[in-house]
C-alpha cells in the first residue's frame, strides 16, 4: 500500500528520515519498494505480505513504527454529538447470508453539504496517489487508508424502501458500478440491495444509482465485514478490483468495523456539517473469541539461536498491543492475549516470529554447530552429469525446452505411447495444452528457430522428462529421456550413442532393428535395444518431416530411455593390464551379398572363439565399378595378439585362412580380387 511520510506522523512521533523509516520498515518485514517525493512530502510504496492485513492502513503501519522506535501510538478520537432521532426509526438492515457477511453496521448522517474537501484533506488524498472527489467520498477514502477498514456512503434518499438487505444476487441481476462498468451478477455473489435492486457489490464497489452526488443531503454510512474468499472470487469474476476489495480479500479487523464508522461520522460532521443520527445498526454474527498463546523463552531462544531475556520479548509484544496475562507468567513463560487485528497469530511459533522480526534478524548470529557429514551418492546425478559431459564433449549443445506442447507432437507419429497426451485444463494458450510424450519434436523446433537465424548446423540434445499417460485421471509415468539431433548423418549419430555407452562402461551390446515411424526415413532408422530391453530409436528424418519444417539439411535424431542407460551403467572403470607383446594386423577387403550385415560377419568371426583375435575393426563399405551388382565390398581389420609371445606371420596367415573359410561357408564371402 501507499503511505505518506507526513501523514504517518499523525499516529506516531519519530525522528526518522524517510530513508531510515523505509529501512526500519523493510527490516521488520514491510518492504518499502519505492520512495517518491510529492510536494513537501514522500509517498512510500509498502509491500504488505498476505498474512498481515493489519498493515493495510496507516494506523497498522504506525503501530509497527511505534514498536520499532519505542514511541507512543496515537489513535484519533471518535466522539461526537448526535441528534435525538434514532437510527432504528429511519432505516433497517437485514442480513440474509451471515456467512458471507457476518457483520454489517449502518449510520445515518443528515443534512450534509456536499462540497470539495478542504485543502489539507485534498493534499493528503493526493499524497498517496488518489484523486479527490468530494468531501464525503474523500472522507470515506481517508478513513479506509487510515484504518484499513473500507467504508461506503450511500445517498440515503435514493435507497428504495430506505433500507438495506444483504443478500446473494439473483440470477440475471445487473448493476452499474461507480466506475461505469456494467456488472452481470450471479447467485454466488453477495450484494447490498435496497427494497428493489442491488445498490453495491458487497465489499467491492458501490452502484452508480445511489452514489453520493452534488445534490445528496442524507447519507447512509456502511461499515462491514465480508467473507474474504467470496470477495476475492467475485472480484476476479467481475474483473473489478478496488482498494476496498483488496482489503476485504485479506480480512479486515472485525473490531475496527464500528470504530471506522464513528471516525468517518465525526469527520463528516467536522467537514461537511449536518447531524449524526443517534445510534448504529450493528448486525454482528462474529464470535469475539479472544486467543491466548503461551510463549516459552527457552523455545524462543533455541529456535532462533538467540539469548534474549523475557523482558525484551515482553516489551516487544506489549508495544505490538498484545496483552500480557500476569496469571500466565512464569520464569520461562509469557502468556499473551492476541489483539483482534492479528488473526495471523495463534501459536507459540507465531509469537516467536513477532519477537524475532522486531528484535531484528540481523541480531541473530550466523553460527552453527552442524556436524560434518558425507553427501550421499545419487546415481541419477552421476550418470546425468557424465552423459552431458560426454555429449557436450562431442560437440553437442544442451537445450532445455518446454514440457507443455501443442498438437504438433502427435502429427508425425508417437515414439513412446499412442495414448492421448495429458491435457492442461487451464493452459495459457489453447494450442499449447498438452504434456509432451517425447522430446524429439521440441528439438526440431529448436533447429527450426536456429535455421531461421542462419545457423545451419544444429547439433543439440536434451535430457528431460516426458509424461506418458497411464489411464484416465492417473498420475503419468514420468520418463527421463535423452534426445539428440545431429547433422552428420546416421552413422555419426549412432557413433555418438556408442561413445556414450562406452563412456558409461556399458558392456551390453547395442542391437539395431529396422523400424517404421512416420518421423523417420524408413531406409535409415532403427529401434535400439540394450540387454534385450528397448533403449530407444534412431533415424534420419523422413522427407515429409524435413519438408514440414523446411529444413535445409537432413538431420538425424535419436531418443533414448535414460533409465535403461542408468540401469546398465557401471561407474567404476576397471583396469586391464597393458599387453606385453605387440599386435599383428591384417587388413582385408571381402565381397559379399548385399543382404549380409556387418553384425553377421563380425558375429561369425567372434563365434570361432579364436583366442588370438584381439579385435575386429570395420573400415568401410564399397560399391562400384569393380564390384558385381548386388554385391558389396567390405573392408576391415583383424587384430591378432598373444599374451605370451609375438605371433609369427605364418601363424596369423593360418588364422586368417580359417576365418575366411568360415566366412565363405557361412555367407559365400570371398576375398576381393
Amino acid at each position: 500500500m501507499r503511505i505518506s511520510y507526513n501523514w504517518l506522523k499523525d499516529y506516531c512521533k519519530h525522528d526518522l528520515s524517510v530513508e531510515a523509516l523505509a529501512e526500519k520498515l523493510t527490516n521488520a518485514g514491510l518492504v518499502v519498494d519505492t520512495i517518491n517525493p510529492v510536494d513537501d512530502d514522500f509517498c512510500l510504496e509498502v509491500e504488505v505480505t498476505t498474512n498481515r492485513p493489519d498493515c493495510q492502513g496507516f494506523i497498522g503501519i504506525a503501530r509497527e513504527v511505534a514498536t520499532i522506535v519505542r514511541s507512543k501510538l496515537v489513535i484519533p478520537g471518535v466522539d461526537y454529538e448526535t441528534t435525538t432521532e434514532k437510527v432504528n426509526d429511519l432505516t433497517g438492515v437485514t442480513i440474509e447470508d451471515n456467512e458471507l457477511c457476518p457483520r454489517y453496521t449502518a449510520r445515518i448522517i443528515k443534512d450534509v453539504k456536499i462540497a470539495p474537501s478542504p485543502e489539507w484533506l485534498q493534499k493528503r488524498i493526493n499524497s498517496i496517489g488518489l484523486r479527490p472527489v468530494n468531501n464525503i467520498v474523500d472522507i470515506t477514502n481517508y478513513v479506509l487508508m487510515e484504518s484499513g477498514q473500507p467504508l461506503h456512503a450511500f445517498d440515503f434518499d435514493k435507497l428504495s424502501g430506505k433500507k438495506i438487505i444483504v443478500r446473494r444476487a439473483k440470477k440475471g441481476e445487473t448493476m452499474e458500478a461507480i466506475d461505469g462498468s456494467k456488472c452481470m451478477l450471479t447467485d454466488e455473489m453477495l450484494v447490498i440491495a435496497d427494497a428493489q435492486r442491488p445498490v453495491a457489490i458487497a465489499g467491492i464497489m458501490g452502484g452508480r444509482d445511489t452514489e453520493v452526488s452534488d445534490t445528496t443531503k442524507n447519507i447512509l454510512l456502511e461499515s462491514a465485514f465480508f467473507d474474504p474468499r467470496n470477495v476475492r472470487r467475485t472480484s476476479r469474476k467481475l474483473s473489478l478490483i478496488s482498494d476496498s476489495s483488496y482489503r476485504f480479500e485479506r480480512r479486515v479487523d472485525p473490531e475496527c468495523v464500528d470504530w471506522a464508522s464513528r471516525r468517518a461520522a465525526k469527520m463528516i460532521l467536522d467537514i461537511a456539517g449536518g447531524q449524526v443520527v443517534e445510534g448504529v445498526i450493528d448486525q454482528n454474527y462474529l464470535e469475539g473469541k479472544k486467543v491466548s498463546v503461551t510463549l516459552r523463552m527457552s523455545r524462543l531462544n533455541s529456535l532462533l539461536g538467540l539469548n534474549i531475556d523475557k523482558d525484551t520479548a515482553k516489551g516487544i509484544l506489549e508495544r505490538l498491543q498484545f496483552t500480557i496475562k500476569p496469571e500466565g507468567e512464569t520464569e520461562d513463560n509469557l502468556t499473551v492475549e492476541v489483539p483482534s487485528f492479528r488473526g495471523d497469530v495463534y501459536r507459540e511459533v507465531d509469537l516467536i516470529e513477532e519477537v524475532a522480526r522486531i528484535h531484528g534478524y540481523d541480531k541473530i548470529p550466523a553460527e552453527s554447530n552442524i556436524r560434518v557429514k558425507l553427501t550421499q551418492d545419487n546415481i541419477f546425478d552421476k550418470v546425468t552429469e557424465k552423459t552431458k559431459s560426454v555429449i557436450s564433449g562431442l560437440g553437442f549443445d544442451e537445450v532445455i525446452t518446454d514440457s507443455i506442447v501443442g498438437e504438433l507432437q502427435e502429427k508425425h507419429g508417437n515414439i513412446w505411447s499412442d495414448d492421448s497426451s495429458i491435457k492442461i485444463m487451464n493452459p495459457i494458450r489453447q494450442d499449447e495444452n498438452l504434456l509432451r510424450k517425447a522430446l524429439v519434436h521440441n528439438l526440431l523446433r529448436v533447429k527450426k528457430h536456429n535455421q531461421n537465424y542462419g545457423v545451419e548446423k544444429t547439433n543439440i540434445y536434451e535430457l528431460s522428462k516426458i509424461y506418458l499417460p497411464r489411464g484416465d485421471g492417473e498420475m503419468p509415468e514420468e520418463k527421463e529421456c535423452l534426445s539428440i539431433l545431429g547433422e552428420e548423418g546416421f552413422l555419426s549419430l549412432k557413433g555418438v550413442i556408442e561413445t556414450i555407452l562406452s563412456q558409461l562402461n556399458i558392456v551390453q551390446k547395442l542391437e539395431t532393428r529396422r523400424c517404421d515411424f512416420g518421423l523417420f526415413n524408413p531406409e535409415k532408422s532403427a529401434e535400439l535395444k540394450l540387454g534385450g530391453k528397448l533403449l530407444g530409436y534412431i533415424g534420419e528424418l523422413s522427407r515429409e518431416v524435413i519438408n514440414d519444417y523446411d529444413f535445409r539439411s537432413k538431420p538425424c535424431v535419436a531418443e533414448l530411455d535414460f533409465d535403461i542407460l542408468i540401469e546398465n551403467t557401471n561407474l567404476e572403470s576397471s583396469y586391464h593390464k597393458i599387453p606385453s607383446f605387440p599386435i599383428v594386423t591384417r587388413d582385408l577387403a571381402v565381397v559379399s551379398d548385399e543382404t549380409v550385415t556387418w553384425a553377421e560377419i563380425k558375429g561369425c568371426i567372434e563365434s570361432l572363439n579364436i583366442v588370438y583375435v584381439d579385435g575386429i575393426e570395420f573400415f568401410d563399405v564399397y560399391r562400384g565399378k569393380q564390384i558385381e551388382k548386388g554385391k558389396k565390398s567390405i573392408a576391415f581389420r583383424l587384430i591378432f595378439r598373444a599374451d605370451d609371445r609375438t605371433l609369427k606371420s605364418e601363424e596369423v596367415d593360418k588364422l586368417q585362412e580359417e576365418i575366411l573359410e568360415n566366412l565363405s561357408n557361412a555367407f559365400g564371402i570371398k576375398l576381393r580380387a
Partner: protein
Amino acid sequence: MQERLSEIQNQAKEDLAKAESLEEVEKIKTRYLGRKAGVINEIIKSIPGLPPEQRSSTGKSANILKKEIGKWIEERKSEFNTSSEASLTLPSLDLSLPGEHKPYGHKHPITQTIDEIKGIFRKLGFDIEYGPEVEHEYYNFDALNIPADHPSREDFDTFYLGNKRLLRSQTSTVQIRVMEKKQPPIRMIAPGKVFRPDTVDARHASMFHQIEGLMVDEGVSFSDLKYVLTLFAQSYFGQDIKMRFRPSFFPFTEPSAEIDISCSICKGTGCSVCSHSGWVEVLGAGMVDPNVFETVGYDAEKYTGFAFGLGVERLTMLKYGIDNIRLFFENDLRFLSQF
C-alpha cells in the same frame, strides 16, 4: 638438339644448387619433369617433328636426362628433409593461420548453474533429491500448510490436469516426499522444473527451475539457517557480498525470511537491476512450520529445521546480467554457446 639437352642439364643442376627449401625443389621438379608443361616432356613431345634420324637418339638422351634430374631432385629433397625440421631459417608454414577447430558443445546455462549450486551444497553435506513434476494437490498445497482458499491455488497461478493433479508450482513438494520417507536428520536440496501460468514477459516464464533446500534435526535454529545460506551466497556470489535477512511470509515456514544480497551491478549504490535499492532478492527461507512437521508425522517439539528456495533462472540472470528469461528456452545457439 643434343646441345639443348646439355643446356637443360646444366641449368637444372644450377637451379637445384640454388634451391633454399623443399618447396623450391618441388617447383623445380614441376618445371623440369612436370607431365604437362615440364621442359623434358616438351622435348619428348616435339620428337615426332624431328628429322627421322634424330628421333631415336633424342628420345634416348631425353629419357636418360629425365632420370638423372629425377635422381638429383630426390637427393636434394632428402637433404632438406633431414635438416628442415630443425631449420627455423626456412619457414614453410604461416604460423598465424587459425588452428583447426573441432566443434565444442556446451551444457545449458541453467544446467551449469544447477551443477554449481549442487556442488556447493554437496560440500556442506546436503543430499540431492528429486520429485515428480506432475503432482497431487496434496503435495503442492495441503501438506505445505497452504489453506484451501489461498490465492496460489487459483487457476492463474497453477496449471491443473484434473482429478487433483497439477504441474507442481514449487519444488517444496520434494520436502514433503522426502520427510514422508525418511526420519531426521535430513539435509537435502531438490532442483527441478516448476510451472506457473504467469503471463510470459522478460521476467516470467510458464516453466522455470527452482532449488529447494531442507535441513531437519534436533536443535536446528535460525542461526544455522543464516550460517548455511551465508556460506552458500558467499560461495556463489563472492566473499565480499553483503547480505540482508528480512522478515517475510511463506505458509510452510515460520518465522520466514527473504534474503537480499548487495547488488553486484552497482555495488549497492542503486541501479535498474536492483530497482535503485542497492539490494537484490535471491532466496526465500524460514524455519519449517510446525504444521508441516505434524503433517509428515515428525515431533515438532523434538525436531526443528529450516527450508529455503531459490530461482535458478533468476540467479543465472543476475550473475551474467541477462535481461530476458525467454532466452533460456528459445535455445538460440548464439546464446547457448556463450556459456
